[in-house]
């Protein structure tokens, strides 16, 4: 090269102004969007699966009017007395056939005549349904024989949204979804890029490293609100699941939760070089939360000695807070303990991840 061209190289023109779309952060974030949308499985697991699950469980556990109770009676007098109660379906049987039907579960209780005009109830007292039936039947028998209620009572029926299983379930699914997409979304993409030596190629360019991580954050936030909205709107429209607290508080809660899980994902992905290693580690982290954090049933059911552990899991705190916010309208200011757990995980995971992170 001549001396002239070397000098010409020194007089490199200054950076030209460029449209916003050509900034590194915008391009990196667009890449995240594209990689997500072009992966049909990811779209399914994040958006479709929670809704399918909510639909299935919502149908399975829908609240039904009380079923007719099937019972057996030996002798026409007892049968006649029991038939005065509409919610009882009474079969008149002989003793042997009645005991057979009881053992087979075709009837839940068998009433037989006893000495001195009395009645004997045959039933399994460990079965709550049978215990309820016994109370109903006894009341019917006593009333048929002339007993009267001493205190006048009336029933006011309450079937309010917010206390059904589906109401319990939707915040649980929402929390599970935030965890899955946070941990998988970040962890998997980073490990994959490291495995392909794409991370190494990127840091060989002048890409600002913080913007690489920031692009994950921006795309996560966008998808976060789409996936939260999909599930919440679905729950509201199909099952009438309420959001009693202010929407902006729900949005803020989801944001902090998602950041916390993303930080956990980043920590998991900070060193791992293979997809297999990452999957194993992620499942190891997520499995206890699927089991203990009360997605499908209350975490209170675990024995007291497990509770400190259960309460320390980020997903438990997220789901508790979501249930309180959505179902009871509890304000964020009263969810201090949960927010402290979520925020604590966020800070510890994020800074540990920054310390451990390897680009190669």
């Amino acid at each position, binding site marked *: *090269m001549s001396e002239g*061209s070397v000098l010409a190289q020194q007089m490199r023109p200054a950076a030209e102004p460029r449209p916003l779309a*050509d900034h590194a952060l915008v391009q*990196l974030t667009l890449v995240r969007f594209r990689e997500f949308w072009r992966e049909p499985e990811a779209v399914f697991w994040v958006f479709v699966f929670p809704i399918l699950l909510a639909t299935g469980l919502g149908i399975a556990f829908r609240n039904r009017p009380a079923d007719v109770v099937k019972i057996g009676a030996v002798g026409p007098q007892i049968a006649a007395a029991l038939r005065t109660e509409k919610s009882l379906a009474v079969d008149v049987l002989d003793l042997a056939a009645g005991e057979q039907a009881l053992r087979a579960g075709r009837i839940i209780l068998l009433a037989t005549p006893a000495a001195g005009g009395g009645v004997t109830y045959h039933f399994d007292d460990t079965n709550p349904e049978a215990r309820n039936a016994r109370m109903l039947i006894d009341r019917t028998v006593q009333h048929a024989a002339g007993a009267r209620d001493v205190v006048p009572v009336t029933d006011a029926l309450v079937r309010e949204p917010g206390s059904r299983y589906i109401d319990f379930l939707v915040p649980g699914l929402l929390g599970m979804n935030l965890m899955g997409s946070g941990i998988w979304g970040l962890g998997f993409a980073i490990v994959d890029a490291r495995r392909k030596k794409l991370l190494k190629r990127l840091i060989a360019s*002048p890409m600002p490293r913080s913007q690489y991580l920031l692009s994950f954050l921006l795309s996560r936030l966008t998808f976060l609100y789409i996936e939260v909205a999909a599930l919440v709107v679905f729950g509201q429209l199909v099952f009438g699941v309420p959001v009693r607290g202010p929407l902006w508080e729900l949005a803020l809660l989801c944001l902090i939760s998602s950041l916390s899980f993303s930080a956990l994902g980043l920590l998991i992905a900070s060193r791992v070089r293979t997809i297999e290693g990452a999957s194993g580690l992620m499942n190891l982290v997520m499995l206890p939360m699927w089991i203990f954090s009360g997605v499908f049933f209350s975490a209170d059911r675990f024995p007291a000695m497990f509770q400190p552990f259960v309460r320390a899991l980020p997903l438990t705190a997220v789901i508790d807070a979501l249930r309180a916010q959505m179902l009871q309208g509890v304000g964020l200011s009263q969810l201090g303990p949960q927010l402290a757990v979520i925020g604590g995980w966020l800070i510890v995971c994020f800074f540990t991840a920054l310390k451990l992170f390897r680009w190669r």
Partner: protein
Amino acid sequence: MPTLPNKPPVCVHGLRKAYSDVVAVDGLDLEVRAGECFGLLGPNGAGKTTTIEICEGLLAPDAGTVELLGMRWETDGPELRQRLGVQLQETQLSEKLTVDETVRLFRSFYRRGPTVTEVIAMVQLEEKRGSRVGGLSGGQKQRLAMACALVGDPDLLFLDEPTTGLDPQARRQLWELIERFKTEGRTIILTTHYMDEAERLSDRVAIMDHGKVIALGSPRELIASIGAEHMVAFAMDGGAAPLNLASLENLDGVSVARCENGGYELQVRELHRAVAALFEETARRGIVVTDLRTHSATLEDVFVSLTGRHLRDE
């Protein structure tokens, strides 16, 4: 941070890098002149990639200094990255992005440089512009990697084994591309374990072995340095008694003789005289020569004469 006109754009001194089990680079010195294509040639494991990755600022050396364009990684990292173009071995670009999106992404990291359209045209991928990276052939992927190295209009271009694993046609296409970059006056550092690639593309070559430079010069100088322009390989009929290497070296026009895979190989200055002398000698001894082959001396022969091994020996 000016590039002094008489200061070479790449100055590497006393470079050393050891891994737990092996010394990868062992006291390496290199100077690459402005506008030249400099080849690092050597077998796998010679330390080429470690050397180039230290130069690219991806690895820190245990000892030694690297000065690029008058700058150092320790003090001028961000500025250096803007002026370097890098193509790594084994990078897999995201398969779900298109060619255009990939180039646009890398272009966004640089302050200045050609437009996305121009870069795609430079590597002749116009027809594949809207295609997903996953659907490209090996050669097209490698040209895309080249495009990503060129988006910042680099003063210094590092190419690490750019044609490894490609079919012959794709290799030739890539060579033509690199030859065009050379005419644009860029300084290029290229690693390869293909002697034909180094010979064709490099103005100067450093032959590396066990982390050291064992020979340095233009391909022509290096080939001349072994004192031979041609190589003659031959084998003999099975029953013949082994030939004495010293007697072969005494033949007219032969400089060095070696045993090679059960046959012999001669480094030869003047082909016509050496072959005539060889036949005279074998006829005198009543030996039948089979499988006689000759070729012009190559960098491979330089490597063999320096180390006694072939470049491709694993």
